[in-house]
């Protein structure tokens, strides 16, 4: 009996002391999607230093991209949230903001901060006139070309326009340099929407208007889809592109099976890695070309698509102040300067002499990032994008004509949005 009491006493003491340490130190829970961006150990390093400086304990959870949305929703719906801070893909901004899942950060973000982040980046996280996340990662698509193939085909440099690119591809095909000069990630996933958004931009427009209404079925949107279908019909695009995700499209390119592709920033690293790439030296990165009719419309005659990630605070978090401190820290110029593997969001860091020396292509990246088009900012985004993907894919498979596919997509999207 005595022994039992001693055991209980010890357990009781442990519980009490545990409760006190929990009270003494502030703690925040963070969920971060580990994908082709800052890697978990890097995020952990950032958190370690933050703990050291602030005394706030950071519990990190890493999940796959596909799980993040679900987990954040679950945490927002729960009476007691699992997380305080989460990484937010820009396409969720409208949805989470309209449902009140995250906190508007306008009171926290100072004018100095705003002045140093390009509007193209900040705008991605604005919905209903408020800012819902602090930009953390600036991903976007770039143009990749194989200069050896271009030269073999008898041209001197990369194409400036889409039309010029088609001309080069036809020459390559004719000379048998490469079977399918174009590859891409056109499988029926989010990547397809991204490709379609930049191509619509390259034909001079956007998929949705400023009021969030779909306009893609005429003009630039239609031209973009017709262009994609034409590439397949003419045998210029690899039919395998219809089943490719982004890593698969990269693999096509770095295996030397394509002359051109568009992809996110991560391809640059693999392309120059002799262990995996057959196109080291030949593979180059540049600005995505636009249609010749659009020349002069954009500052750098290029169009891209944004894939930004922000850091946001859950509305039911009990530690909002600590959460903001953490958020401000991981998105700060000093941290981004230390991790130049990803494109910094701060103009002062992008243009610093240090960044220029460390990253020889930062100049191209800075120009491309200023040329991004956003995917539509509408609350039912997952559904809207899914409809778009489905009809675009049907057109690519040749089962529908581009115009008919886009008309139907527009009608369905309007029904979902209640327009």
């Amino acid at each position, binding site marked *: 009996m005595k022994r039992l009491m001693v055991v209980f006493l010890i357990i009781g003491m442990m519980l009490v002391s545990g409760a006190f340490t929990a009270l003494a130190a502030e703690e925040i829970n963070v969920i971060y999607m580990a994908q082709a961006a800052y890697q978990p150990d890097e995020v952990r390093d950032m958190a370690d230093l933050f703990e050291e400086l602030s005394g706030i304990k950071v519990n990190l959870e890493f999940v796959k991209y596909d799980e993040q*949305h*679900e987990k954040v*929703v679950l945490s*927002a*719906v*729960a*009476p007691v949230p699992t997380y305080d801070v989460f990484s937010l893909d820009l396409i969720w901004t409208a949805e989470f903001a309209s*449902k*009140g*899942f995250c906190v508007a950060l306008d009171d926290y973000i100072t004018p100095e901060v705003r002045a140093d982040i390009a509007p193209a980046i900040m705008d991605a996280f604005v919905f209903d006139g408020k800012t819902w996340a602090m930009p953390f990662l600036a991903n976007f698509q770039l143009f990749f070309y194989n200069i050896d193939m271009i030269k073999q085909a008898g041209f001197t440099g990369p194409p400036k326009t889409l039309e010029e690119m088609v001309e080069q591809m036809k020459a390559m095909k004719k000379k048998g340099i490469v*079977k399918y000069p174009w590859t891409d990630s056109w*499988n*029926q*996933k989010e990547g397809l929407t991204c490709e379609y958004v930049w191509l619509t931009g390259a034909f001079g427009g956007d998929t949705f208007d400023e009021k969030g209404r779909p306009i893609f079925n005429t003009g630039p949107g239609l031209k973009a889809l017709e262009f994609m279908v034409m590439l397949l019909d003419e045998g210029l695009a690899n*039919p*395998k592109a*219809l*089943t*490719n995700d982004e890593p*698969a499209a990269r*693999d*096509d390119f770095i*295996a030397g*099976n394509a002359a051109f592709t568009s992809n996110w920033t991560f391809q640059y690293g693999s392309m120059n890695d002799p262990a995996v790439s057959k196109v080291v030296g030949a593979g180059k990165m540049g600005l995505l070309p636009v249609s010749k009719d659009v020349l002069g419309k954009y500052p750098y005659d290029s169009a891209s698509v944004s894939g930004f990630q922000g850091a946001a605070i859950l*509305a*039911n978090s009990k530690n909002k102040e600590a959460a903001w401190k953490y958020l401000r820290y991981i998105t700060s110029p000093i941290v981004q300067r230390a991790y130049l593997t990803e494109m910094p969001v701060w103009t002062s860091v992008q243009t610093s002499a240090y960044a220029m020396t460390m990253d020889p292509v930062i100049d191209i990246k800075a120009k491309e990032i200023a040329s991004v088009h956003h995917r539509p900012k509408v609350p*039912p985004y*997952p*559904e809207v994008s*899914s409809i778009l*993907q489905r009809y675009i*894919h049907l057109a690519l*498979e040749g089962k529908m004509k581009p115009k008919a596919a886009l008309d139907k997509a527009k009608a369905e999207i309007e029904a979902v949005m209640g327009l």
Partner: protein
Amino acid sequence: MRRRVGELSSERLASILLLPSILIIVCVVIGPLVFAFYLSFYKAEPVIGGISSEFIGFSNYLYYCFKDPLFWNAVRLTTYFTVVSLIIELILGIGMALVLNKRFIGRPFVRSIMLLPWALPTVVNARMWEWIYAGSSFGALNGLMKVLHIFPADYDAVWLGFGVPFQNIPLVGSFMEWVGASTALHMIILADTWKVTPLVTLLVLAALQPIPDNYYEAAGIDGAGAWSQFWHITFPLLRPVLLVILVLRTMELFRVFDIIYILMQYSIRVMGVYTFEVGMKFLHFGKGSALSFLVALFILGIALIYVKLLHSEEIY
């Protein structure tokens, strides 16, 4: 026998012992089921701190039955997937069981390794076939085709592609297009069948073993050939186990999700995938619940038909 004070009757003891598992089942199975059924009559969406719901009666069910073409596409596609998979599994399963029921050297070894695919988790199986079917030169199947000189060195087949098979054959082609079949779907059927056939074989084999040899001997003396022996002796005796297999497999095939989602995400919308997309991606909890009950309704309907068709008095 006299009971001591405080001793429990065996029924009461049984119910006390069962209580924890019943509680768990109520919490994790029956509770969510009832809640989902309740949600299926509501327009339910997540909001901060809970779920908002608005009663809309049968609207969710009516929407899918009469207004949503995607739902009927999913029904056709799922039915096709189920029927084709079942036919292949049954033919292969019965065939393999018949072979394994004969005596030959190394039979115990073959019987045990045959079960290996079934022991694989579906996720592992899906990932493995993803590598096999990869549409690049890294794909194992493409590699094999090249080694065997069936494909030229610079050709890579897109195994998980969206082409409609037999498109040029008049009726078959339009049927395939109507059900939404694609090369990818057939490849997935193959991958799934590879994994599940051993289970069918095992069940059939278990039913074959008690059939006495003298039935066949007698039939042989009466002049019955192998086929008529199978048709008149084996098949009727296999009926009960076939019923079990059919119900079990139809249920599993009709709600297939994992292998298709892992290999193709949302691009092959069978009912399981569609339900997940509506419920968990678009966050329409009400609609998603309605969809899952519709799936259950279909399975129930099919199961009833099976029981009617195959139920018979056992002849032993």
